[in-house]
């Protein structure tokens, strides 16, 4: 996105909006990650304690999810153009 046509006040405003959105996106990504990994890793409810196998699965799942998101983000940035014909 290109905000170069914005004046200084508008650019300052957009920086604050983007900063706030990044925090919201991060929190949303985090709770999405926990839900997704919990769904995949935890299937035994005969105990309330996380087994060591479940814990390892959660940690691997979280690590992999972050690396997945980063890789998608890198490819996304390369492609850059989103929804051609809609956004332009």
């Amino acid at each position, binding site marked *: 996105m290109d905000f170069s046509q914005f004046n200084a006040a508008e650019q300052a405003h957009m920086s604050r909006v983007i900063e706030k959105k990044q925090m919201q996106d991060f929190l949303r990504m985090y709770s999405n990650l926990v839900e997704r990994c919990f769904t995949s890793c935890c299937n035994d409810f005969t105990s309330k304690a996380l087994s060591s196998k*479940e814990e390892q699965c959660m940690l691997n799942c979280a690590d992999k999810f972050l690396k997945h998101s980063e890789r998608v983000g890198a490819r996304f940035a390369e492609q850059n153009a989103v929804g051609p014909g809609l956004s332009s």
Partner: protein
Amino acid sequence: MSMFGRGSSAPSGAVNNERIEMAVQELDMVTDVFNRLVSACHNKCISTRYAEGDLTKGESVCIDRCVAKFFEANKKVGERLQSVSANGAPGGGPLGM
């Protein structure tokens, strides 16, 4: 007085927008986690036959364990993310995080 204004030293009696915004963000986060918890444990514990309107004994016990396990799992992931983000940027986003 913009809705995005951030006066950080408001006199007492005035509303500090930054403080309000952070509190609202925390509320949103708690609500989001709660809704996902309800959904995850419903999927894990509730039979979809719906032969009765009450929770069965088995479902009730499963819910309690599911919530406890979800909290523990959430805690482990939180600790992991903190150690990751201490070493660099956390995750990838479209806004260049």
